[in-house]
């Protein structure tokens, strides 16, 4: 019995260790590497959040960046120094003017950022609970569209398309690591919880899960709200690291780059998400340096090659491993990882 628990604990331990390695690399590698490492840790927080919903429900969400945005804006409201807020939010409508006086610590901002995102999660949960498959994917996209549109147009509160500035830099390697570890533990705990197990059953077969008495909607909603919280926290961490941000960050291109991480690693697996986040962050940095000619002794690659290579890599991985590198398995667990077995070889004659 206890050995079984230990075996199950291997996954979160290994994942936390990976986050630890990222942090140590950042520590050892100088300021540039440190930046990349912190961003990678923030990505870990985000993708564990995304994967809490996607991996367990099997529904790919395009909307989680909306939660990240709310987290970031919340952190901005809570941590920008009061005097600066006075000028930044001079047009704040009366009922909200208390925001101008608010000031909180970094950790509180991250938690509140997560909570605010979770509120949006709660509001949208009834809809998400009812929808499956691509319809659900499109609904999550709609959540992003609405959030983005409101954030970029409600100028008096959000400063619209104008940047948020002056957020004190508080996310460091250590706090990033701390939150990444916390996020991994939360995500793993949910995945092994009874709600997580039932949700994964519904991912495998909706009708069979209903016939087993699983209330799919309730578990979907639970995972959705929890993942909203984690992604909101990631947003607050992001804001407190980058110190100024613009609403345009929280839109499709960011959504897609997170999806690339999750899908490369394996979108049905928490380990896949974490590995994907670390791997893609690393790859991005390597490609960036490649493109700037840092490896080739100054002869820079044509601009844009990095994007192209990333796309090509994604495609190749998908063709080789349709469910990403981890498939639906977890690090440290026995059993299958990528299942290529299912793909029966094409008869040679067929492609003639």
């Amino acid at each position, binding site marked *: 019995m206890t050995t079984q628990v230990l075996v199950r604990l291997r996954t979160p331990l290994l994942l936390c260790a990976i986050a630890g390695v990222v942090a140590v690399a950042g520590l050892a590698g100088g300021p540039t590497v440190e930046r990349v490492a912190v961003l990678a840790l923030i990505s870990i927080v985000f993708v564990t959040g995304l994967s809490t919903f996607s991996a367990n429900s099997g529904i790919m969400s395009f909307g989680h960046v909306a939660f990240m945005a709310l987290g970031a804006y919340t952190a901005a409201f809570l941590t920008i120094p009061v005097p*600066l807020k006075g000028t930044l939010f001079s047009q704040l409508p009366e009922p909200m003017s208390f925001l101008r006086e608010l000031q909180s610590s970094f950790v509180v901002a991250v938690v509140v950022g997560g909570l605010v995102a979770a509120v949006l999660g709660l509001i949208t949960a009834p809809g998400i609970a009812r929808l499956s498959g691509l319809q659900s994917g499109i609904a999550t996209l709609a959540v992003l569209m609405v959030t983005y549109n409101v954030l970029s147009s409600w100028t008096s509160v959000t400063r619209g398309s104008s940047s948020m500035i002056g957020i004190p830099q508080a996310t460091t390697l250590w706090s990033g690591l701390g939150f990444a570890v916390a996020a991994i533990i939360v995500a793993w705990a949910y995945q092994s919880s009874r709600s997580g197990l039932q949700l994964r059953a519904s991912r495998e077969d909706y009708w069979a899960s209903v016939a087993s008495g699983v209330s799919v909607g309730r578990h979907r909603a639970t995972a959705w709200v929890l993942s909203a919280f984690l992604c909101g926290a990631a947003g607050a961490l992001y804001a407190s690291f980058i110190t100024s941000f*613009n609403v345009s960050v929280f839109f499709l291109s960011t959504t897609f780059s997170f999806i690339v991480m999750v899908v490369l690693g394996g979108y049905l697996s928490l380990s896949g998400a974490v590995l994907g986040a670390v791997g893609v962050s690393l790859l991005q940095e390597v490609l960036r340096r490649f493109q700037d000619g840092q490896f080739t002794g100054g002869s820079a690659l044509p*601009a*844009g090659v990095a994007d192209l290579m990333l796309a090509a890599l994604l495609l190749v991985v998908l063709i080789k491993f349709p469910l990403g590198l981890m498939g639906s398995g977890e690090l440290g667990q026995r059993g299958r990882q990528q299942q290529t077995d299912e793909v029966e070889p094409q008869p040679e004659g067929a492609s003639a």
Partner: protein
Amino acid sequence: ACGGNSGSSDEADEIVIGFATSESGNMAPFDVEPQQAAMLRIDQLNEEGGIGGKTIRAITRDVRSSPETVGTAATELIGEGIDLLVTPCDFDLSAPGASVAQSAEIPAVSICAGDPKMADRTTLGDFVFSANAGSDVEGGTGAAWAADQGWETAYVLQDESIEYTKSAGAYFQATFEELGGEIVGADAFPGGDSVNIASQAARLRGLSPQPDFVYVASWNPGGATAIRQLRESGVEVPIVGPAALDGQVLLDIVGDASNIYYTGFACYNYCSGADSEDLDAFVSAYADEYGSEPTSAYAVLGYSMVSAFAEALADVDELDGPAVRDALAEGEPVDTPVGEVTYFSPTCHKIIDFPMSVINVDGGAMTFVTQQRLDSVPDLGDGNACAG
């Protein structure tokens, strides 16, 4: 572009400028030409013996239109010992790089950001500059020119998509009213890549009497599309717009439409009538170097920016950050291909008196109308440090 030769050379006789700009990604069109023009100017200066005897060395990093990468690239460049950081043409993209520079006390100059905040020492910090006039100046200049034409009533068609367009619209409106004009109506559209302003056009056409002109506060290509749709739906009055409409693409999109004006940075190759030897020289030098002429007037901003650096740093011996910053902020007039321009002042880290070129689009051709300068930016109460 220049590669990153990070070989250690003698600090004293070298000025190192780091470019953390977008060579790829969706913001690349805004950065590539100004940066190439800047490189051109650097080469020219080096041939003439550098700045105050120091040669200029440029290091470039492609930030791939991503704000996170800007910060990383800036960190890396500062690690390599640059004296001055050049950030992208866009405020939002510049900001993460500028903040890194600010904390390292290295001046960061956006190559052409038009957002007034870029010039405000209190927002990102006192080491942050923009080598452009800004949307406030552009909106104001458009209003000043329109008032000079004797036009009294204006209609504003506001593109809501980005800060630039919103601020250009707001400052146009304020300046025009300050100058005695009247805004007889305003409408808005969401902007972006898919523009459909049929109903806005219908509302405008229903106005009687028609306004003297319409100010389209927008950018390309959506702004050009909006103008095309206005004309197609039968709106005949003159149309005025800001510099972001500039470029060959405007001509292509609006086709044969006429009576369109915008306040651009310069009038060259695809535009005629400026008759400026300096501009012609710039264009041909650029074409010689890169094989084709610049496609928008943003290029000249990059070129002039390096001239401004040269002017400011000519007498600076110690290249430490605060010294460079103070030298930049001194505000000497600089000779540029479009005329004399005062870049920065101790309170306002951008250009106010930029001689905007009013350009007329008519029947598929662009012609230079006149140069227009704005005396001062009106104060909208939004904390614009350069106002008043």
